[in-house]
């Protein structure tokens, strides 16, 4: 009971919502006469009922495509200057106007979105991988290893998060040369994995006691196969939900870092540093403040709704047909 609560507490401490992770039987036995559906199909069915999540997913896909194909859509390059057309308002030539160096704001917001989304996704994925490994090992082997790993996790959770990010950025700058984009992703992933680790550990602790894991061992499966082939797929639901919410948190954190002047450095635009650049023109060209801000809001909102929908879909407590 404690563990479960701990997971929820910690999850809530580091991300927007308390995650109602499931660590019990991940299956709802379908009555035999029902049409036989795979777990995935059942999840998809539940997901489809979540209108907001569907809408969010569509918006995100659209946004993703826009940012990916922005070189084809826009006639401008994100770094292309036009010093004669600076700080223009929105218009037909420049949909969202231009910035202080006469660069097309629409192109920059989209390109910035590409970087921000890239950061969000990479961070969520690598955090998921780190957390999955740490939590998996801790949950599977238990004992002193579990204790040691969980104390490390606690330690990472305990240190003020942004402080470590700021100091960590410096640390990397000093000891590991590389682009600020890679640094930002590295640093963020290094401080986003703890909720994943806790969730995976919780799921593994309960799965470990499941007979199908014993059955696998009795069949002669190695630890690695049991962990990755048998247990991990059963932990995927909570991991995916958490990773989704992690994308949102990573986008917000990256933009905050950039806003403070850390994070991804110009000329690579991100939503955060676009906003930071816009501050000096808030009266002259308010659009420069509004558009990147709204873009962050929209993207993060959609990711959060998507995460919510996924939680509903992947949470096996929820039976198909019941209205909850």
């Amino acid at each position, binding site marked *: 009971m404690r563990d479960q609560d701990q997971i929820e507490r910690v999850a809530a401490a580091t991300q927007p919502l308390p995650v109602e992770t499931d660590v019990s039987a991940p299956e709802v036995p379908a009555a035999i006469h029902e049409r036989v559906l795979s777990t995935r199909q059942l999840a998809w069915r539940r997901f489809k009922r979540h209108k907001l999540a569907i809408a969010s997913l569509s918006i995100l896909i659209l946004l993703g495509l826009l940012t990916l194909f922005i070189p084809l859509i826009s006639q401008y390059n994100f770094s292309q200057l036009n010093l004669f057309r600076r700080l223009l308002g929105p218009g037909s030539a420049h949909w969202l106007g231009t910035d202080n160096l006469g660069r097309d704001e629409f192109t920059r917001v989209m390109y910035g979105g590409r970087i921000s989304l890239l950061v969000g996704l990479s961070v969520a994925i690598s955090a998921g991988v780190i957390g999955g490994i740490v939590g998996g090992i801790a949950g599977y082997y238990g004992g002193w290893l579990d204790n040691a790993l969980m104390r490390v996790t606690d330690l990472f959770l*305990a240190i*003020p998060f942004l402080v470590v990010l700021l100091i960590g950025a410096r640390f990397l700058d*000093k000891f590991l040369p590389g682009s600020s984009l890679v640094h930002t992703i590295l640093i963020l992933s290094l401080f986003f994995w703890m909720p994943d680790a806790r969730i995976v550990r919780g799921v593994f602790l309960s799965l470990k006691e499941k007979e199908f894991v014993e059955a696998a061992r009795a069949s002669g499966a190695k630890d690695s196969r049991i962990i990755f082939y048998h247990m991990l797929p059963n932990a995927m639901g909570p991991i995916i939900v958490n990773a989704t919410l992690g994308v949102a948190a990573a986008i917000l954190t990256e*933009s905050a870092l950039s806003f403070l002047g850390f994070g991804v450095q110009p000329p690579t635009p991100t939503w955060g540093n676009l906003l930071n650049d816009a501050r000096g023109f808030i009266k002259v060209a308010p659009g420069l403040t509004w558009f990147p*801000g709204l873009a962050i*809001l929209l993207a*993060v909102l959609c990711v959060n709704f998507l995460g919510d929908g996924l939680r509903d879909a992947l949470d096996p407590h929820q039976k198909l047909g019941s209205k909850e």
Partner: protein
Amino acid sequence: MYRYIIRRLIFAIPILLISSVLVFAVVRSTFDPLGGAAINPRVSKADIIRVKHELGLDKSPVQQYWTWLTKFLRGNWGSSLLSDRPVYPDIQSALVNTIVLGGIATAFSLLVGVGIGVYSALRQYSWFDHFSTSVAFLGLSMPNFWFALLLQIFFGVYLTKWLHLTSPIFYTAGLSQPGSSGFNLIDRARHLVLPMLVLSVQIIAVYSRYMRASMLEVLHSDYLRTARAKGLKESRVIVRHAMRNALIPLTTQVAIDVGAIAGGLIITEAIFEYPGMGRYFVDALFRGDYQQILPWMMVAVFFVIIFNLAADILYAVLDPRIRYA
């Protein structure tokens, strides 16, 4: 229970010590202690060597750590290399300011968040529930520095201009009116409103969602059904039984959050020029002032550890299911 608490307290000491080693190692290896001095062209080579010796930077890392720790514990926190101001009084006042801001924001958010959460849970799927859920999502997804920026420009520039005021209704920077001395409640409040608002948006969103979830869980539990079946008044069922139990997880969450406040208001403080811990840290970081960063980190980490401990103990005290021998 007392033994548990005492054991946890004793246990916190090695954790604090280990943290201090880590803090020292990380800060020492990341920052050049004299990096700040090097900015100043007037500092001579001889001075640097002298200061190096004074600070004991020519000794072994273990000796350095030990000297630093013993001094730190005795209250000798050193002085900033750049301004030569002693660090202790500045961190103290910064800490007080941050606790004031964080405390008020947390208290306010708790009040609003719990209210919204409980009401949403009681009226699940009502328009209020849907509305508050949507607003909570909006709050969670809002980049808070952006929100702060919008608030600043609205209250600071536009509203002041439209209403032909000489000073804004809510100030956009600082702690008190420049030049004022002493404490003026109204002035202080006018400075606190905007940063508090920015902080609260997210906390309210988290707490209300959290409260709603745990309240729903309690409402669907067997013992509550039993309480109802016993014929208790609905209001009593809600307040005495449901809310009390639903508040348990939130309480520990709040304890953890409060611990993080000491080091965690960096963005809000930076934007609102609020002279708290976050601002102190960012200033020190920008200048690379090792002498300021080290004690700051220790204070922040100390708070986190202590409040995490408090959360654990609170949890043990509040949750009757858990009994530690």
